[in-house]
């Protein structure tokens, strides 16, 4: 539930209308110019229809300097951002040799493994020397090393399932697995805010797709009942299978999934459940095992658990964990296993070492400290932002916090002003989010210290005042009054 001030909604629509009108006007004049100028590709069909990239040409390119910023150090709590300049109003950007040291509030570095770590990095370098940077082969040809076999066992144990299979890329995991699990005649019911990889995988599978309202188990039940009663479209035969796809933490909202209710509904109607824990594995839960750990759901109730290693483990790749039969079937049929190059050996070693640190098997308590620190940091940051009057989404304990901006002009303003003060934030707009609901998404890391967070809060408060994003009234400072009361006694 996002609460928008009515005036802000009106002005946002109006701003987008104005941007759209100007874009159309410029396109109209461009068409006239192009008709005059000579075209060397006579007779060839155009590669893209003029209207398909309208959004990119006329809206995104205007504020291009707020996205795709190159960095030249590892994405730790502080990192180096390369400055870029443009001579033609942001149509093209050129990298300069100047570099700014900025506070990193955008990387998915939840447990701080993105930079050199005292346990992980020596082992990664050793496996780089032993196995080299790439296996240069698919899993079935020559790309399965001992590291891969160990990694799959390690991941299966960590997640709490009998077996797991690991792929080289997280996005490819979702888009290559869904077509293998379900085909024509099946039904996929997915949350309305699911990630693009799930949407693409579902479209590629050929199954019928229905969407239920974000995180609303009652609507899921309604959709399930309706679809089971109607059956397949036109023939009305019963569905071959039904898979419900949800995510652990939604990356644009910071909200946790209402997993216990959804699992009980799926059990009642005998639908399979597919849980995408890209942002929650390693970052939430008492021992870092994800939303099942946090919400107390038995992992045996979830049929297919998927996750990625990019966020909390400081590596790359994705995994699917499930029963032994399921994983055997996937290994024989999934194109990402049969035809794609296997995960790089140093990356695999990084995952195993970071899992050992999280579980405390390296002999120290750094894993538990990291988990406690990210929880503390997230709760502190979120409560401070809310006290200042920002509209922050997401549940407590979630390290992802979007700050709502709404107006399209506030997106580049917020981003550029923060960068001037050496704080790098990621701003997200349409079409990754709904049109009205543009936001700045902050990802808290266990590598952030209290001073880093205080500096970030100061900068964000100052920029928020300048840009005008404090949509809620700020809470008055109660501590000063209490302090004075005690002194007078």
């Amino acid at each position, binding site marked *: 539930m996002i609460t*928008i001030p009515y005036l802000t909604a009106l002005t946002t629509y*109006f701003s987008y209308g104005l941007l759209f009108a100007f874009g159309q006007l410029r396109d109209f004049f461009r068409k006239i110019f192009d008709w005059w100028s000579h075209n060397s590709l006579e007779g060839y069909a155009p590669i893209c229809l003029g209207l398909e990239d309208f*959004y990119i040409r006329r809206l995104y390119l205007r504020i291009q300097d707020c996205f795709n910023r190159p960095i030249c150090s590892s994405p730790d709590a502080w990192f180096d951002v390369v400055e870029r300049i443009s001579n033609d109003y942001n149509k093209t950007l050129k990298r300069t040799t100047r570099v700014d040291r900025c506070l990193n509030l955008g990387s998915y570095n939840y447990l701080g493994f993105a930079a050199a770590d005292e346990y992980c990095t020596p082992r990664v370098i050793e496996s780089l020397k032993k196995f080299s940077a790439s296996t240069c082969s698919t899993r079935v040809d020559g790309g399965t090393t001992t590291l891969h076999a160990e990694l799959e066992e390690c991941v299966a144990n960590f997640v709490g399932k009998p077996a797991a299979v690991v792929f080289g890329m997280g996005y490819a995991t979702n888009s290559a697995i869904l077509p293998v699990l379900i085909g024509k005649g099946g039904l996929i019911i997915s949350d309305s805010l699911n990630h693009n990889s799930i949407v693409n995988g579902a479209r590629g599978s050929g199954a019928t797709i229905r969407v239920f*309202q*974000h995180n609303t188990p009652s609507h899921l039940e309604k959709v399930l009942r309706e679809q089971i009663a109607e059956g397949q479209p036109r023939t009305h035969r019963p569905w071959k299978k039904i898979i419900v796809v949800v995510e652990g933490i939604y990356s644009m909202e910071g909200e946790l999934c209402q997993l216990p209710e959804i699992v009980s509904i799926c059990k009642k109607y005998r639908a399979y459940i597919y849980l995408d824990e890209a942002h929650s594995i390693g970052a939430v839960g008492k021992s870092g095992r994800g939303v099942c750990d946090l919400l107390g759901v038995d992992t045996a109730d979830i049929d297919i658990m998927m996750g990625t290693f990019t966020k909390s483990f400081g590596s790359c790749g994705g995994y699917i964990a499930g029963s032994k039969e399921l994983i055997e079937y996937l290994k024989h049929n999934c194109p990402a296993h049969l035809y794609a190059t296997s995960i790089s050996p140093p990356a695999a070693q990084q995952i195993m070492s970071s899992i050992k640190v999280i579980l405390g098997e390296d002999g120290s308590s750094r894993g538990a400290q990291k988990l406690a620190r990210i929880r503390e940091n997230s709760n502190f940051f979120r409560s401070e932002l809310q006290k200042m009057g920002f509209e922050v989404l997401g549940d407590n304990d979630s390290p992802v916090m979007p700050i709502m901006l709404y107006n399209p002009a506030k997106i580049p303003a917020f981003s550029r002003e923060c960068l001037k003060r050496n704080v790098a934030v990621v701003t997200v707009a349409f079409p990754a989010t*709904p049109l*009205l609901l543009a936001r700045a998404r902050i990802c808290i890391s266990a590598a952030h210290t209290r001073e880093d967070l205080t500096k970030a809060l100061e900068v964000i408060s100052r920029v928020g005042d300048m840009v005008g994003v404090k949509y809620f009234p700020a809470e008055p400072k109660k501590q000063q009054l209490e302090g004075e009361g005690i002194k007078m006694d």
Partner: protein
Amino acid sequence: MANLYVQATPTTDLNKNTEWFTYPAAWTTYILILFFSWLVVLSVFGCSAGMAWTVVHLSHFVVTYQFFHWKKGTPFSDDQGVYNRLTWWEQIDNGKQLTRNRKFLTVVPVVLYLIASHTTNYQHPMLFFNTIAVFILVVAKFPNMHKVRIFGINADQ
């Protein structure tokens, strides 16, 4: 007034080209844009109120016909072209007919027509053009005209 808040629930519409219309304040913005454009026309041309409403009505006809019923597809390529044969009107609400949004969008040109013809006292050249405009717009929005291309106009190759 600045403290009036509305709740925005995320919709189940996956089409990013049309889901923005389901959020609060869309209808109000539409009506306010029409009203302000009437004021702008009055101040720029200095004509009578009726002529200004006629101008607003006819330019509204041209703009909405172009963007709702002529242009097909979506302005971004993320959806892999699944909507490339559908105009915006055919895309909204996932193709479901007679929803609240569609009823509202059908009523607006009719109300504009009534205002324009009333304020010009139903005089001849303006009345003719206004009637043609509203006739075309309302017929284009009928449920029976869903995906119909008359004489192949605007159909794909």
